[in-house]
C-alpha cells in the first residue's frame, strides 16, 4: 500500500525540489543584482554526495518516524541512541578489534532490548494525559545515555581507524565513498524490510492497528504493550545501526554528537510527515541534497558552509508552517 504510492511521492518530491532550485536561483540572482556574486555547486558529485548523506539522515529519521507513528512519542533520545551505537562500535573495535560493520549484528539485539525495555519500564508507565510527558521522559533518557557515555569514555573525541574509511570508488567520474555506499545499502534494506513487516505480516497489521487505536487493538487480542515495546525496540535499533554506519563516515565522534543528529532527524521526519516511513527516507534525501548544495554555495566572499544547518532549519520551519503533515503526506498512509 505504501510502496505503491511511491510514484506519487517521487512526483511531489521532484516538484518541490524543482521549486527549491528555482527559488535558490532567484535568490542568487537577486543577491548578484545587489552586488554580491552568488554561486552554488550543482555538479553530479555534489548532488550525489547530498543523496548519500541524505540516505543516512533518512535512516535516522526512519526510526524516529516509526516511533512517532505508532506511539505519538517524539523520541528525544533518538540522537543519543545513535551515539550509543557509535560508542558500542568504538568499544568493540578498541577492545576486541571488531570491525564496526560486524558490530551491527550485535547492535540488533542490544538496540532492540534497550528500546523494548525503555518502552516497557518507562514510557508505558507514564501517567496518561499529562502534557508532553513522553517527550520529556525521552529527553531524560537521552541525557542518561549521553552522560553515561561521558562516564565510560570521557569527553575526548574517539575514532576508529579502519582502512576502508577513506577509500572511494569512481563511477562515471563521480567519487563515492565506500562507507557511504554501505550506509545507503543498509538504509535501503531497512526501509524495504520495514515496509514488508508493516504491510505484509500479521504483526505489522497489529502494529498499524495499535498505532491507530490501541484500545481497539487490545480488545482484538493484541498485546499492545508488547507491540509498542517491539516498535520502540525497532526504532532504537535503527538509531544504533545508523550510528554505527556513521562512525566510519565521520571519522571521529564525541559523546554529545547526538544532539545534532536529533535535529536532523526532526527535520527529516517533519519534511516527510511525522509517522510516514517512506516520507522519512525521501525527506532525508531531500535534506541531504539541500544542505550539501547549500553548503557548497558562496555569496560574494562569504562561503555558505557555516550556514549549512540554516538551510535545513529554514525548510523545517517553512514545512511546519505550511504543510505540517509533511511535504508528501496525507494522513491515510501513516504507520
Amino acid at each position, binding site marked *: 500500500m505504501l510502496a505503491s504510492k511511491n510514484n506519487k511521492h517521487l512526483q511531489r518530491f521532484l516538484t518541490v525540489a524543482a521549486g527549491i532550485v528555482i527559488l535558490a536561483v532567484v535568490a542568487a540572482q537577486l543577491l548578484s543584482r545587489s552586488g554580491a556574486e552568488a554561486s552554488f555547486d550543482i555538479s553530479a558529485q555534489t548532488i550525489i554526495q547530498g543523496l548519500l548523506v541524505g540516505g543516512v539522515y533518512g535512516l535516522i529519521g526512519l526510526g524516529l518516524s516509526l516511533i512517532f507513528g505508532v506511539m505519538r512519542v*517524539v523520541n528525544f533520545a533518538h540522537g543519543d541512541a545513535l551515539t550509543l551505537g557509535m560508542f558500542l562500535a568504538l568499544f568493540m573495535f578498541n577492545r576486541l578489534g571488531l570491525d564496526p560493520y560486524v558490530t551491527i549484528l550485535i547492535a540488533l539485539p542490544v538496540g532492540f532490548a534497550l528500546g523494548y525495555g525503555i518502552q516497557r519500564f*518507562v514510557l508505558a*508507565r*507514564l*501517567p*496518561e*494525559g*499529562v*502534557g*508532553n*510527558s*513522553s*517527550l*520529556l*521522559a525521552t*529527553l*531524560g*533518557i*537521552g*541525557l*542518561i545515555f*549521553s*552522560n*553515561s557515555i*561521558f*562516564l565510560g569514555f*570521557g*569527553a575526548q573525541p574517539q575514532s576508529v581507524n579502519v582502512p576502508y574509511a577513506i577509500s572511494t570508488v569512481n563511477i562515471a567520474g563521480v567519487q563515492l565513498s565506500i562507507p557511504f555506499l554501505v550506509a545507503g545499502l543498509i538504509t535501503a534494506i531497512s526501509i524495504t524490510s520495514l515496509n514488508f513487516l508493516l504491510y505484509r505480516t500479521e504483526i505489522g497489521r497489529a502494529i498499524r492497528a495499535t498505532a491507530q487505536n490501541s484500545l481497539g487493538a487490545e480488545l482484538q487480542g493484541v498485546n499492545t504493550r508488547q507491540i509498542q515495546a517491539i516498535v520502540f525496540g525497532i526504532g532504537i535499533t535503527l538509531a544504533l545501526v545508523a550510528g554505527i554506519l556513521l562512525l566510519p563516515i565521520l571519522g571521529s565522534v564525541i559523546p554529545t554528537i547526538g*544532539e545534532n543528529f536529533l*535535529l536532523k532527524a*526532526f*527535520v527529516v521526519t*517533519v519534511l516527510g510527515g511525522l509517522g510516514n516511513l517512506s516520507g522519512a527516507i525521501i525527506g532525508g534525501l531531500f535534506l541531504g541534497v539541500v544542505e550539501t548544495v547549500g553548503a557548497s554555495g558562496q555569496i560574494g566572499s*562569504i562561503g555558505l558552509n*557555516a*550556514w549549512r*544547518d*540554516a538551510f535545513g*532549519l*529554514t525548510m*523545517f*520551519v517553512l514545512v*511546519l*508552517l505550511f504543510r*505540517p503533515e509533511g511535504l508528501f503526506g496525507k494522513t491515510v498512509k501513516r504507520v
Partner: protein
Amino acid sequence: MTTTSAHSPRALPKINFGSTWLSLALIALMIIYPFVFGKNMNWGIATLIFAGLALSWNILGGWTGQESFGHAALAGVGAYTLTLLAIHYQIAPWWGALIGMALATLLSLGWGWLTFRLRGAYFTLSSIAIALLIRIYAINDPNKFTGGSEGLFMPDLPTFFGLDLFDRRVEYWLAFAFVLLVLLITHVIRRSRLGYALLAVREDEESARALGINPLRMKMTAFAISAALTALGGCIYAIYLQAFEPHTLLELPLSIQIALMAIIGGRSSIQGPILGAIVILGLGELTRSFLGEANLLIYGFLILIVTLFAPGGIMGLFNKTGAKLGKAR
C-alpha cells in the same frame, strides 16, 4: 443524586489562586541568602537569574502549554542588545535593557504569529529551529555586528543610582528584583482574565474560543510578556557574565535547562519554577565533584522521576490540583 437549587448558604466559595505565603517564604529566603552565604554570591545570582528565566518561561510554556525549547534566544536578544548598545553607543544599561525587552517582544510577536498554529511537539520543534537560526545568525553575521563567534565583552558601565553594577551584591539584588517582578506579574496574571484565558487555551482552544477568548491573541500576549521578561533576565545574565559568546548563550541546552527548571519544579503552579531552579542548580553543585563530566546525568534521572511519579513537578507533590488523577489504563 441530582442537585436542585435547594441549597442554603449563598456564600461565595474562596477560590485558591495559588499560595501567596509560599511566595512570601521564598522571597524571605532570597532576602536572607546574601547575609548567610555572602561568600557564595555567584551561585545565588545564577540561581536567581535562572529562577526568573524559568518563571518567565512558565508564563508561556506552563500556562498556555506551548513548550518552547528556544528561550535562550530571547535571553540572548536581551543580553546582546544591552551589551552592543553599551559598546557601540555608550547607552546606559537600563535603557539597553528596555530596548532589549522591546526587541524581544517584537521578535516574539513575529515568532508567535508564525508558529502558534502549531501545537504540542510541533511547536516545541519549531521553537528549537527558530532559536537555532538566531544562533547561526549571531555566529555568522556577515557584518560582524554581533561580534560573531568570539562573542562580546561587557564594557565598563555607568553606575546605577551610585551602585557599581559589577559588584556582586548589587547584581544579587538586581537579580532578586527581577525574580520579584516576574513573581509579582505571575501572581497578578494568575487571577486575572489573562491568566484564566491562558489556562483555558492550554486545555482546549476551541472551548476557549466559544467563551470569547481569542487564543492567538492570548498566546501572543503570554509570549510577549514571557519574552520581555526573559530578555530582561538575559540582560542581568550578561552583566553577571561580563563576557559571553553565542556558543554559551544561544545553545539548545540552555533553552532546555530553562524549560526543565520550570517543568521539574511544577508548571501548573506559580512557584514551581523557582523551586526547580534551586533544586537543579543545587544538585548540580553537590554532584559536580563526583559525577564529573557526566553532571547532566542528574538531570536525566530527575526528569524521569518527575515524569513518572510527579507529573505536577515538585510543587505537584505538595498540592494536588496540579496533578491529575491517574487515569486507568
